[in-house]
């Protein structure tokens, strides 16, 4: 994995760059999509899977995955679930509100190296779709560079599904296999019911060609990996994104340590072979 390059020694890596909320869109009852722009007019220069530290002045700073593919127009997107002080303050922001951004930080999905020419399988659980979306958009933007593209998406209920327009687009596309399931259906739901692992055997994964990118809650990885083993996918062909409390983003504060690894430097995207024996990882 390639970590973000270090700025010169004189720079204060804790100093956020001013940014502005361009727009916000409610995705579910608790998840909000924000479109942001750096006030410098510069590009964020991120890769899919990386994260930024977002400051809401007065509320604090929190690590958030970037959910858009690298763009040329200086805009980027994040999804924030309303769970704490900073995320609640973010939800209350209006368009035009000033924020601070540090980053991008951490490792990214190997969209340019390992994944090129291979089949790509995305396994998204709940809000895990947000970080994966940056890679999904990247792959679909360069569709000819990859083999079969499969997207598996599981949420607890139909109402928790995000990006409904995009889900509809993926299910229409001939060059994408899209499967989704919910743990608990409601009256409106006509699709699959059950946890996401039930989709894995239905996806027709070719273990010799596929690279699997999984993102979801810690418990999901335990079961998804077992279901991937069942169709002969090996550890080195699985990438996971691990959440920890990345307070500083630069390997100093100690909060995001996973045994000897740092989620902010060695992750958040890990090759599963590198963490399968790391006790605190999954």
């Amino acid at each position, binding site marked *: 994995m390639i970590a973000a390059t270090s700025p010169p020694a004189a720079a204060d890596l*804790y100093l956020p760059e001013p940014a502005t909320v361009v727009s916000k869109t409610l995705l579910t009852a608790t998840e909000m999509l924000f479109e942001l722009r750096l006030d410098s007019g510069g590009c964020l220069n991120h890769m899919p899977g990386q994260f930024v530290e977002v400051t809401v002045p007065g509320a604090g700073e929190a690590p958030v995955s970037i959910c858009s593919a690298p763009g040329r127009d200086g805009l980027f997107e994040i999804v924030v679930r309303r769970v704490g002080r900073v995320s609640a303050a973010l939800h209350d922001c209006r368009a035009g509100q000033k924020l601070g951004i540090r980053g991008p930080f951490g490792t990214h999905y190997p969209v340019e190296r390992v994944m090129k020419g291979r089949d790509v399988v995305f396994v998204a659980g709940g809000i895990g779709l947000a970080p994966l979306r940056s890679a999904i958009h990247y792959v679909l933007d360069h569709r000819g560079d990859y083999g079969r593209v499969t997207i598996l998406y599981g949420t607890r209920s139909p109402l928790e599904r995000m990006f409904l327009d995009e889900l509809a687009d993926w299910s229409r596309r001939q060059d994408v296999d899209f499967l989704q399931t919910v743990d608990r259906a409601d009256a409106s739901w006509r699709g699959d019911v059950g946890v996401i692992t039930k989709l894995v055997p239905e996806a027709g994964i070719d273990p010799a060609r596929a690279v699997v990118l999984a993102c979801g809650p810690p418990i999901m990885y335990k079961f998804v990996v077992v279901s991937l083993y069942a169709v002969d996918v090996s550890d080195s062909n699985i990438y996971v994104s691990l959440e920890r409390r990345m307070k500083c983003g630069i390997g100093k504060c100690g909060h995001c340590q996973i045994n000897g690894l740092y989620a902010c430097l060695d992750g958040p995207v890990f090759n599963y072979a590198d963490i399968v024996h790391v006790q605190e990882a999954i």
Partner: protein
Amino acid sequence: MSIKKLDRVALDDWVEALIRDHNVCGPQVKGDRFVYERLGSAADLRLDHDVTILPPKKYLLPPAEVLLRFTRGGLFSSELAPEPLVLFGVHPYDVAAIAQMDRYFTQDNPDAHYRARRMGTAIVACDVQNASEDVFAACMGAATVRGGFDLLLTLVGETYVVESRTLAGDALLASAGRLADADPVSLGRREQVWLDAEKLLRRRRLRCRPEELPALLERSYEHPVWEQKSRACFSCGSCVMVCPSCFCFDVQDDLGWDLTSGTRQRRWDGCLLTDFAVVAGGHNFRKQRRERYRHRFYRKGKYLRERYGFVACVGCGRCVVACTSGIASPVDVYNALVEGQ
């Protein structure tokens, strides 16, 4: 860069001269113990201290430190103007710990705030004259130091040998006036002080070499000592707060009374504290005391050693004193692992 000699009167005069020109902090009496405080008079300086309650870490990574100022309108500015400082009388194990902090904070993503404080700090080290009860610095290779200071003071009989290693050290020593060069007899006695320190600073004995700790820990993850010892842990974090080799911190915003501007501060934090590994939504990645307790000894003996090349324990024994439950001693824990193989 020279080696000089000065008697106790000359030392006092020199310290008074330094106090006039600099912000000098050194070990002083507080109750029945010692602390680093700003020196008002040479008479307050206690170079015969055994160990201070807090290490000089508090000057380079303050317990609370403003990183930046912000306005709610989205303006951010770094707070980077620390007061220059002379740390006077720093024991070798604390010099070793500062060298670890230098490695940790100034290389790979350098920390501008640490760097600014460190660049403005001169270190006058002092060889140990009285050992504390729980010290094991000699087991950690930190009973004496060969570098990482500007000046090194060593008491030989009734006089001090003072060695300058840097231009900053030369400049500080210049205010002592004309000093005699250290004679061969004094230098010989200094060698003996260093040899004696290897015995003096070994009140507790580690039954392995520090460089063996990563391999020892590699096979001890499920050792019963983690559960046995951590049952008595209050998760108070005292062991990490007093540790010269614990650098973890939390960052919080404080909004001012005007509600339009504020400061972002970092404060000491520690992996023994209950919520250290809690993420948004409340999940705690180290919920059990056993997991937090074990993490501290793994970070010190294995993780930082593998990443940065140092074992993050210099054998000062402060954690042993600070721990109410008597479970914090790295010597006891690592020896239990050695025995339990």
